[in-house]
């Protein structure tokens, strides 16, 4: 009689083993996507007209806790501390060198510590970005690629870029934030 219980015990053990491993496997396989950026649901309408030499305009919404408006010309953009790195990205098979000031520096000039920003492109496409998280990717506002200035045709004049290779991030995680043909930044929230 005792013998009959033995295989059942072993089977239960085996089953527990399988279930545990399957759960571990499912946990391993399941990796939620990051979501620190989202397509903007409220288009930001600019109330200030751009100067002729403005390449990037930084504004703030009324309830963001910041009232500054900053119009950056090409010269003032180039006057900021510059960063340079070589990285792979989703729009090219080869690694390319990008040059430009840190996005964080530009936003600091306008509004100090922003927590949420909106990045808008020439074709009016825009995304909202949680800047507290995005900051950690050290994004730059690139104006040059491989030493030459970005034209509208090669996704210029400005392009948000992160050193994906150095940070070892998967391009998919940050692609949504890498706005090209950047023209406007709107501060949505500050601390």
């Amino acid at each position: 009689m005792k013998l009959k219980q033995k295989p059942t015990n072993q089977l239960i053990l085996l089953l527990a083993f399988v279930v545990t491993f399957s759960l571990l496997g499912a946990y391993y396989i399941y990796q939620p996507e990051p979501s620190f950026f989202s397509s903007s649901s409220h288009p930001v309408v600019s109330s200030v007209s751009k100067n002729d030499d403005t390449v990037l305009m930084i504004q703030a919404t009324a309830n963001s806790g910041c009232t500054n408006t900053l119009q950056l010309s090409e010269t003032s953009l180039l006057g900021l501390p510059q960063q340079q790195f070589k990285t792979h990205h989703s729009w090219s098979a080869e690694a390319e060198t990008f040059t430009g000031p840190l996005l964080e520096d530009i936003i600091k000039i306008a509004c100090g510590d922003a927590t949420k920003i909106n990045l808008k492109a020439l074709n009016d496409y825009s995304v909202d970005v949680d800047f507290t998280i995005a900051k950690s990717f050290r994004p730059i506002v690139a104006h040059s690629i491989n030493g030459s200035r970005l034209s509208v045709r090669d996704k210029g004049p400005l392009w948000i870029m992160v050193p994906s290779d150095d940070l070892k991030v998967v391009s998919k995680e940050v692609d949504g934030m890498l706005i090209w043909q950047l023209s406007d930044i709107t501060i949505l929230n500050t601390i």
Partner: protein
Amino acid sequence: MNLSQQYQLSNVLLTLLGPVLIVCIIISGSYVVSTYKDVTYSKQKTLWDVMQLDRELAHTKVEVKDYIHDISTAESLVLAYNILWSRIPTARNSFRKDLSLSERDNNEIDVLVGSLFEDVKRMEPIIVGQTEINKIALQEWLVKLEQHENAIRGNFIHDLASSSSRYARQTTATILKAATIPLFFIICFFLYLGYLLSALLNERKINQQMLDHDTMTGLHSRDFMMNTLKDLSESSSPFVLLAFDLNKFKTVNDKLGHHAGDKLLKYFASQLGSTLGQHGIAGRVGGDEFLCVFESTDQKTVNRYYGEFLLAIKQPCDIEGVSIQVSVSTGGVFSNNCDNHVACVLEQADRAMYEAKYQKLKTILWLNTDRRKVETQTKSIESSFSV
């Protein structure tokens, strides 16, 4: 030494195979998930880029019309033109990266988008760097843009969005192809489980066989006999129990050695098994003690069986040159004498057997009469011991 090492190695491999297979399933499963994510991501990107291309085409068309009607400036047309230009290589790049687009699809799209790019490039000297843009050339270009827009919408957007298109089938095929690997491992794992289960059941069968049989004589074991008696008594079906004891077995053991004793036991057991064992259940319960259970409760029938057995052991057993005549004392009892109680039946069979030994009886001594007679018989045994 070598053999046991080999055995241990195969055991270790067998134990490791399960976890290894599970790890393989997990790894290949995560590969399927990542393939699925890649496919959906590239599909999303393709859709996004083709929509953006379509949008810029429409936007450029509006700008061209506005310029022709003197509503907008050359500057904004140039910007729209440049944005449209920038969209084309981006879209081409996404299409090339799309896992769901086969080479054939890609070639078709490349021709489609390539001809659009040619038409866009051709306009560069007319649009860029001009203060006054040739409106007739713009008008012609507008028609071409319209054609390109229709071609992209008609051929490509429809194909991307439809669930029965070649594109959708290719997507499914890519994922299914990736899924074959974990499927293979899952099948392997189930085969492994099946093997383990069959090995386990086989082991159990062997163990049960060993438990049920006496290793030396091959007759049923003591445990098996006791369980059989218990089952019979619980089902309250009447039975007959015979108890055997070899006469002068100790003498054989002492004079010829244990080896000879074992041979004698084996001989006796084989004769018992081939005669009474064919009609009932025969087993060895102790040194030279044997039991046999019959479900037939007819005394005559059992006696007849016993006659066959006696005939079988009449032939002397030849042990190391010494011919030994086996003689046995047998007691028989009917279970209904004891209301089917196992302990009682066993005790009475034992008593009957000792009585038969005492009386040097050749036949079975039956305790099938009433209890009083048993008691008197028992008393006679006891008195014989006390003398």
